């Protein structure tokens, strides 16, 4: 306390070292190799949201592998869930004069300025996985990602088909993703639209489980106590569904039989639960968009026109399909 300036220097040094270590640890590995040869390899700058889930990690792996396979030099940045990191990364990419910039926006708004800078530098931008709300659509070339509304709708349509013979009311509980996030809003919307086809299907409770296992479990515990008769659980991702499994078992019910469980994503643990008969249906939200992204990068670099919206190639899984697909799943 007496030597305040010394303390400050020490803070700065420690903070600097630690933060640098953590950033380097999390976001690295592909920025180094192969640059500076001066050949005409396409250079793609990619800024990832973070590493918040197994899904996101698979997404990262897919992009890295696809870049290597396509002979594209990838400059990879991990934004650790922060928009300011992502803006900084994009500005870095502009300074480094990469050929194409791609990124998964952490949030929807606030991108106009930095996208304008990229446009002024004549560097094409591709959005992956998540959209931005910029009014000026010329700021980016295309948006490659999943249609979350469609995922919700596919889940709902499967349920309508399963329950078309039901005479009485079917009570559904819903575990929403992070409140206000695009996948949560859209999956909820798509599911609600689809189940409107059968007035017997009724959502009796809907809460946010924050896309996490712990959240899904805690909310499901209360759902089970507040609602004596639950027939169906719709979880906006596998992880919340996996958490809910434990709550259902602890309540003395059999998941997959007493309560039909529908989720979205199809990550490995989720597919395992589906194959084991604990889940009933998964609408896939594929993170493996690396190859599609590399194709697009080549096309926009060559100056070809690309559609403004491209959907990731996705499917759905029943229990039987999960058993077949499981051995070949990458994530």
């Amino acid at each position, binding site marked *: 306390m007496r030597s305040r300036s010394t303390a400050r220097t020490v803070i700065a040094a420690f903070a600097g070292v630690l933060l640098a270590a953590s950033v380097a640890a999390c976001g690295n590995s592909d920025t180094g190799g192969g640059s500076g040869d001066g050949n005409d390899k396409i250079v793609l700058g990619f800024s990832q949201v973070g590493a918040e889930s197994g899904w996101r990690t698979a997404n990262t792996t897919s992009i890295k592998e696809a870049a290597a396979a396509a002979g594209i030099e990838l400059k990879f940045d991990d934004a650790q869930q922060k928009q300011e990191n992502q803006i900084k990364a994009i500005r870095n990419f502009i300074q480094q004069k990469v050929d194409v910039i791609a990124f998964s926006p952490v949030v929807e708004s606030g991108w106009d300025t930095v996208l304008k800078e990229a446009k002024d530098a004549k560097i094409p931008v591709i959005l992956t996985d998540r959209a931005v709300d910029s009014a000026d659509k010329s700021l980016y070339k295309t948006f490659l990602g999943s249609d979350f509304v469609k995922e919700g709708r596919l889940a709902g349509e499967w349920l309508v088909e399963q329950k078309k013979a039901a005479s009485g009311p079917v009570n559904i509980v819903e575990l929403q993703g992070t409140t206000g996030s695009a996948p949560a809003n859209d999956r909820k919307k798509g599911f609600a639209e689809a189940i409107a086809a059968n007035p017997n299907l009724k959502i009796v409770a809907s809460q946010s489980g924050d896309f996490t296992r712990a959240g899904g479990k*805690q909310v499901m515990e*209360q759902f089970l106590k507040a609602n004596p008769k639950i027939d169906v659980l719709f979880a906006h991702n596998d992880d919340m569904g996996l958490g809910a499994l434990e709550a259902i078992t602890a309540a003395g019910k059999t998941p997959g039989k007493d309560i039909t469980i529908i989720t979205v994503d199809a990550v490995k643990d989720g597919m395992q639960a589906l194959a084991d008969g604990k889940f009933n249906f998964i609408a896939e939200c594929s993170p493996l968009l690396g190859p599609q992204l590399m194709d697009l990068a080549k096309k926009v670099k060559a100056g070809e026109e690309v559609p403004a919206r491209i959907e990731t190639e996705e499917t759905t899984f029943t229990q039987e399909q999960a058993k077949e697909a499981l051995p070949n799943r990458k994530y």
Partner: protein
Amino acid sequence: MTAVADRLRPLTAHRLFWPALVLVVMIAANTVYRPGFLAVEVKNGHLYGTPIDILRLSAPLILVALGMTLVIATGGIDLSVGSLCAISGAIACLHISGAADQNSPATVATALALAFGAALVLGAWNGVLVAVIGIQPIIATLILMVAGRGIAQLVTEGQIITINSGPYRAIGLGHFLTLPLAILIALAAALLVAAFTRRTALGLIVESVGGNAEASRLAGIRSRRIVFLVYVISAVCAALAGFMVTANVSSADGNAAGLWIELDAILAVVIGGTSLAGGRFSLGGTVLGALIIQTLTTTVYAMNISPQTSLLFKAVVVIAVCLVQAPAFRARLRRRRRGAEPGPAAPQREKEQVPA
């Protein structure tokens, strides 16, 4: 002996009266909304029901808040506990997931020892920064709060590590004498901390360091050693909480495990009547505060309050808790200003008026 009890009783009643009332009101509101809220039944040989859920889920928060109470009592704060939860859980789960027999008690014991070791090192790091180098606690622990998430993700390689280990699972979900093991562990920790601080001079020394570190040093107390110690204790509590959080879902999520628990813990400490300025602390108040926070979360789910409004609902209740406490503080303060003889407890009150 009775004289001590007589002197403590009204004090305890004062301290915990308002938070306890809030808890009772919340439970009553829930019971009105759903009469079965308090129902507890026996399922598979152990107790099952919403009150049990609240107890079990509040266990990690109680643990973290206990450590936080001691840190805050020395006038410090520990923002890194959430990250420490994630790191310890990740290390334990990583070790178990790599073992040949995940159910072997030896594996789990090694995993816990490794994670505890890491927590001790990181707690010592915090302690050195604050006590030896003299960095402000909020900055010193902010370093690990931010970098710690990175460390946890480094340990898990960004994946969610799923494990299938009976003994480890028991930390979060096991039962002993029909009660959840988690709450018993938290209770044991609370009693242990209480015994160490109230049955020895340690608590008094902690309070004196928080009240005035320089004066304590001049009085012959090694302030630095005490400050160092509380950060290590806080880290150990956080590690234990990290085991519970990850055992609860049998998986380590470097990103979500223990996220924002530091803020909940600080809130629990404040609701419990410990001043952020340091000095006098109340362990019982902290436990009550943690129970209030968990009951609040459970209320949102039990009453099916829409996710869009649940944060507002929580904020309103927390503000209400703080306000309901404030008049009591003001009344005491007024009485003191009118010139009443400052009794032995007066300097402590001076510390307490800060959060109001």
